[in-house]
């Protein structure tokens, strides 16, 4: 079974540093390397799975990405259980349309807002333009080519509950925590 880290300790540390900086600075796009999961999973999504998933984190695979090969890869490299219901998942992986609707995922509880799902959204393109982001981690404003705006606004309205997102494309990733305020580019003069 191939595609795992050759040097797990060090490569996990590099992968996490990128994931952490992406989550700390929404809109920043960072490069990662070292993992290869079965098609159509991107390098960046594979790195996130290896860095973050283990037997304690149920994973839900959206129809766009669900396959026997990927389930085997996840079981072998991370030991994470692949669950049938998105409501049981700590991590979910797939293309945007395939991950919808967002209503079914765990958003945390008032006393434990951290008990919410993190979605890994596979993108065809990831650029620093489009939707305008403001909030924690952003000095003035950042831009990111998000697949939607209304959905992330609705998610922000749940704060401090809500979902957190990674966006992956090839070997690059960005993140959007629930704390970020998202606006259409046209709304910002």
């Amino acid at each position, binding site marked *: 079974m191939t595609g795992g880290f050759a040097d*797990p*300790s*060090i490569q*996990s*540390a*590099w992968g*996490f*540093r990128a*994931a*952490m*900086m992406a*989550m*700390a*600075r929404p809109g920043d796009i960072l490069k990662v390397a070292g993992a290869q999961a079965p098609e159509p999973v991107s390098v960046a999504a594979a790195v996130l799975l290896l*860095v*973050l*998933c*283990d037997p*304690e*984190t149920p994973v839900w695979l959206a129809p766009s990405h669900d396959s026997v090969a990927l389930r085997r890869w996840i079981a072998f490299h991370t030991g994470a259980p692949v669950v049938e219901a998105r409501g049981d998942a*700590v991590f979910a992986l797939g293309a945007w349309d395939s991950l919808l609707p967002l209503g079914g995922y765990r958003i945390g509880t*008032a*006393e*434990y*807002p*951290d008990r*919410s799902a*993190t979605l890994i959204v596979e993108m065809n393109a990831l650029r620093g333009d489009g939707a305008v982001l403001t*909030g*924690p*981690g*952003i*000095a003035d404003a950042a831009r990111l080519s998000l697949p939607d705006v209304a959905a992330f606004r609705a998610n922000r309205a749940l*704060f*401090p509950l809500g979902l*957190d997102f990674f966006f992956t494309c090839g070997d690059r990733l960005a993140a959007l*925590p*629930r*704390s970020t305020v998202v606006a259409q580019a046209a709304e910002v003069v």
Partner: protein
Amino acid sequence: MNDYNFAYLDEQTKRMIRRAILKALAVPGYQVPFASREMPMPYGWGTGGVQVSAACLVPEDRLKVIDQGADDTTNAVSIRRFFERTAGVATTGRTRDATLIQTRHRIPEEPLTRDQILVYQVPIPEPLRFLEPRETETRKMHSLEEYGLVHVKLYEDIARHGQIATSYAYPVKVEGRYVMDPSPIPKFDNPKLESAAVQLFGAGREQRIYALPPHCKVVSLDFEDHPFEASKADHACDLCGSATSYLDEVIVDDAGGRMFVCSDTDYCETRRDAGHLGRLSASGPVTTGQEDAA
């Protein structure tokens, strides 16, 4: 290098801590519970900070560790050696050269940059703990945003002392939502909590991790008629002459002699190297307080 896994902790532990850090960044100021491990040092010596640092370090990092601003005190030296041995990372005393800084109770004087990470060692992460001892209750208070008690505490300070007497671990509100304990930094450092760096807080014994992303809004609690004030000793540093840095008072003899020196040793040394002089600079090694008597 040695027989430890990189940065001491096993991979599964690091993953658990890393997931907690990501959630902490997503909900600024909220304390994420984590399964804190036994570390080869006692509680109270920075086990929380060490675990967060271990989960964040990469081999290319240059680590700085400070204890009350100083690079050369026991706690700082032992944690620096710990990571030199277990992670093989380079270390430094220079704030501007460091990529990851672990700190006990100070924020460096020099403004941090966007590529730096500041890890705090936290003894009591719960800002409401001394007002309400039950975890079930404080958790409910955070969820309901019920922070009246903190203001009552500050008000009682004013009623008793004529001013807000809380001088360290001064509570802050993060992004208008969670009240957070900034760890026992002097309140002089509170304005520096709004920083370009990523700030992570680890409490080992209490098993909590929380975070401030860069440029996060951090407001020190106060009243309109008693606004927050970032106070310090009303002196200049006796070694480097800085009038703006946070000072330690040092007793130098048995006759009441004393001096004030920068708590941030790197800041003070950098200034002295640049030729800045303090009141006692010219007199060589300081052994007495005779200057005061003369």
